[in-house]
């Protein structure tokens, strides 16, 4: 197997997040209406990091939630049951702007499931999407509002995001 290619190293990930945070702040003038909702396993870690940067920009705490979308997936019949993570939504989403945060944007099916799952918690005023990597190959008419890096990939390749692993630097790699 060929060596995986590093797409983003730790400082590049941090720079991408800072830029996304500024773009979110530019798009949403009133920070008080914005909540971040991360999709596990990596999206929630990214959401907490983005929340920290945004809190500094807006000088107010930005609420962050975790939304597991496995129960709303459309491919449950075609795979072994996915690992489910607890959903923690410590705020009301109704009337607010929800920024969904995920690590890799691929077919769009996770985002669709996330929008369905979000529905059970209320009616957001807007839903926006922030992703660290957009690797293409969309199967649904969904696009991201904020992208850390666009990476053209072959469908057979895998993009792995590694964050907060003890004794390992954060990185995003492309596996052939």
């Amino acid at each position, binding site marked *: 197997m060929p060596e995986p290619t590093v797409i983003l190293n730790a400082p590049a990930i941090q720079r991408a997040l800072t830029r996304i945070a500024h773009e979110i702040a530019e798009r949403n003038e009133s920070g008080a209406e914005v909540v971040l909702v991360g999709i596990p396993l990596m999206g929630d870690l990214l959401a907490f990091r983005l929340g920290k940067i945004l809190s500094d920009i807006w000088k107010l705490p930005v609420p962050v939630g975790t939304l597991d979308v*496995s129960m709303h997936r459309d491919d449950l019949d075609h*795979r*072994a049951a996915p*690992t489910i993570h607890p*959903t923690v939504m410590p705020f009301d989403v109704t009337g607010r702007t929800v920024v969904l945060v995920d690590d890799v944007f*691929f077919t769009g099916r996770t985002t669709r499931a996330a929008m369905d799952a979000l529905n059970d918690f209320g009616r957001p005023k807007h839903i926006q999407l922030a992703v660290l990597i957009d690797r293409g190959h969309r199967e649904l008419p969904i696009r991201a509002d904020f992208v850390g890096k666009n990476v053209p990939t072959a469908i057979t390749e895998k993009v792995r995001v590694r964050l907060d692993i003890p004794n390992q630097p954060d990185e995003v790699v492309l596996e052939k």
Partner: protein
Amino acid sequence: MSWNRKHLLDIESLTADEIVTVLDTARAFKLVGERAIKKVPALRGKTVVNLFIEPSTRTRISFELAAQRLTADIVNFSADASSFKKGETLKDTARNLEALNADFIVIRHSTSGAPHFLSRVVNASIINAGDGAHEHPTQALLDAFTIREHKGKIAGLNVTILGDILYSRVARSNIWALTKLGAKVTLCGPSTLVPKTFEQMGCRVTHDVDEAIRDADIIHLLRIQHERQRKTMFPGIGEYTNLFGLNKARLAKTKPDALIMHPGPVNRGVEIDSEIADCERSLILEQVTNGLAVRMAVLFLLNGGKGPQEVA
């Protein structure tokens, strides 16, 4: 963490990892039950049949609600209203259910091994909801879930199961689950109901209730099953209550953080004093809440198809 089984027939054949997968999955489903909208579409379009050839209220209702909260359709099939009275065999009944495109059959039967038999003759996923005195896997899973939630772990805990062990599928499934997860299990009750042969399952057997519960972290009481009891197993209910019933005096001699469990239905005043059943150390009603989450998790995991867990 991955699950590749089609049926849940017993705890004996599960690995510790598989048990933990169910418990972790159930944690997420318990949170669903706390939302304003308690329903998710994971089993949309699927059909679950509750095939209860032995009376049951709480397990049947628990499975029914679990299926509904996953957006499955559910049909109840009970012994008295069924064709069994007209002489149809279990295999024919199951095949008929399958002809209705049932995806899951939840079966309770008075004969041990009935779910295993069904799993060989039909294509649907089979869930054992209690077979004779053999196993009751979802009960053991919900008990393990409840213990883990309160104690933070299961390994190393002292769990005492007290009462009618011999006739209890709950005891057998619990012994398998708890020993696989590293708990130290003590069984206690009259020698006629707790034979020493249970030591072969990796637990300790004693007939002295005060000694059995002294160091227990969990005291798990079992119902005296009047319907399965032969008259000769112990002299009388009064004597059982005197010798083995959990009362205030006995509870006072246990660890202050020892918790009380009971799979229900409770015989108040027989295996447990009425006021103890309602005290803050009793987890009896939480077991019911957790049972729903665990059964949702089991249905969800069994619904998974073949192939890798990773999404494309």
